[in-house]
């Protein structure tokens, strides 16, 4: 599976980007120990001038490269945590709706509709501005709108799986309906739901960046969105301050998409061969 996964150039590029990003995130406290928000040199040093500060400094003299590394941590943590939360919530709600049917299905799916009709970013914005900015609140705010996709797909899968003989078999054995739903049906409904994860991770990273840009990110952490916002005030004199984290965001989202596409593709090939 792994061999086939890495065969397409897109999947290879995506994986390489993600590995690089993960390494950056993990190595950040080793390469750039201490607070990345502290002042490291004179203000507004352009990139590639001073090799102790390879990407220069920002308006307050903070090391841009250190900020970039530490920002990778925030982006990855938020992306993965938000995706995990929304996949878990979505899969559970979708399974309950599909398996229970009837009134419970109707109620849960109308709830899903309600969340889906509100723009995800507005929902996150409202949630963070009410509860207050911190990393876990940002993760919850993003998951609040992202769980609807997994819920719909899980429900559709469960609707077909629950008619299969092995579910009837589990009922004949006397298994409790909740156990049938979560132990027999849900694991078999997961693969198409997990295929959504790359899209959700990428969206979560972008939403987090946008929230930070608007000043609603966790103020004690460096985020790429916050860096873009910070650079905005000196956009004419030092555009690199916004461009560098902007590029990092684009590359990250691209990497997540490509790797996700590769995973889905190789899963499809695997299915087709078996």
């Amino acid at each position: 599976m792994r061999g086939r996964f890495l065969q397409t150039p897109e999947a290879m590029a995506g994986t390489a980007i993600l590995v690089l990003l993960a390494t950056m995130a993990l190595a950040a406290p080793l390469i750039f120990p201490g607070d990345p928000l502290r002042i490291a040199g004179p203000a507004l040093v352009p990139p590639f001038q001073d090799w102790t500060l390879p990407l220069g400094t920002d308006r307050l003299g903070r090391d841009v490269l250190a900020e970039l590394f530490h920002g990778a941590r925030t982006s990855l943590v938020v992306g993965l945590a938000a995706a995990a939360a929304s996949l878990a919530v979505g899969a559970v709600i979708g399974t309950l709706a599909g398996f229970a049917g009837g009134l419970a299905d109707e109620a849960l799916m109308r709830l899903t509709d309600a969340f889906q009709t509100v723009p995800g970013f507005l929902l996150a914005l409202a949630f963070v501005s009410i509860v207050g900015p911190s990393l876990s609140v940002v993760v919850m705010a993003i998951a609040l709108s992202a769980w609807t996709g997994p819920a719909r797909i899980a429900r559709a899968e469960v609707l077909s799986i629950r008619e299969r003989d092995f579910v009837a078999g589990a009922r004949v054995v006397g298994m409790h309906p909740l156990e049938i739903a979560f132990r027999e049906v849900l694991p078999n409904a997961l693969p198409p739901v997990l295929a959504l994860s790359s899209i959700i991770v990428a969206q979560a990273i972008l939403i987090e960046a946008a929230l930070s840009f608007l000043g609603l990110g966790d103020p004690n952490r460096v985020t790429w969105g916050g860096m873009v916002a910070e650079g905005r005030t000196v956009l004419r004199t030092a555009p690199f301050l916004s461009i560098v984290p902007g590029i990092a965001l684009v590359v990250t989202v691209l990497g997540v998409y490509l790797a996700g596409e590769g995973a889905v593709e190789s899963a499809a090939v695997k299915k087709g061969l078996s």
Partner: protein
Amino acid sequence: MAEHLLTVDGLAKRFRRGDSTVAAAEAISFHIDAAETLALAGPSGSGKSTVARLLLRLIEPDAGSVTFEGENWLALEGAPLRTHRAKMQMVFQDPLAAFNPRATVARVLDDPLRIHRIAPRAERPRRIAGLLERVGLSTDLAGRAVHEVSGGQRQRVAIARAIATKPSLIVLDEAVSALDVSVRGKILELLADLQRTDGIAYLFISHDLGLVRVFAHRVAILDGGRLAEQGDARAVIDAPQSAVGKALVAATPKLHGFTGQDAS
């Protein structure tokens, strides 16, 4: 009148198809005694599987009554129904579809032991090994995934699961139809042996009258959701009275000892 193990009276089920409804089962009445095999035969679409699913409460009937072990079987709901399910088990036609694709043999057999509190956790591996031996399988099979073992072995696992709760009735829904002829004979031998030793009754659903004649004590022939005739298996098959019975007998291969038609 002696109490039967299972008494079915006037069972009926209609399915909606578009604007109209189709009777999948109508006025079905029969009984099964302990350690007896009643065959339910009939052409495709005659309602055999519907009757099986009605009995196992996988679908709910529109009318009729079912008395099983002296209790009103259709009145059971929720937890009491789940408890009573131990006594009526089922073996499905397609042994691959009947198991969770992710399950191992051990997990399949562990479920009934756990759910019906037949054995404490520590004792279950031993009970699983015992069940595997009872159906003629190697105990090494326990750790294998169900989809890794052969069709015949898989159907033996299904039988092991069905007998794990010590049922008094097992519904065999075309349980040997998907197996090749040599495996089929051995599974039927196993089932007959279980009936002798444990006194299990079978509702043997099949479209193959050759099999029914050798395996069942009595037969009920279904046609279009209604019972066409029932009686002693040999007597009915040797001299069918109903039109559908005659047609089914005529369709059975005449070669002596040959009973193998492929499953539809």
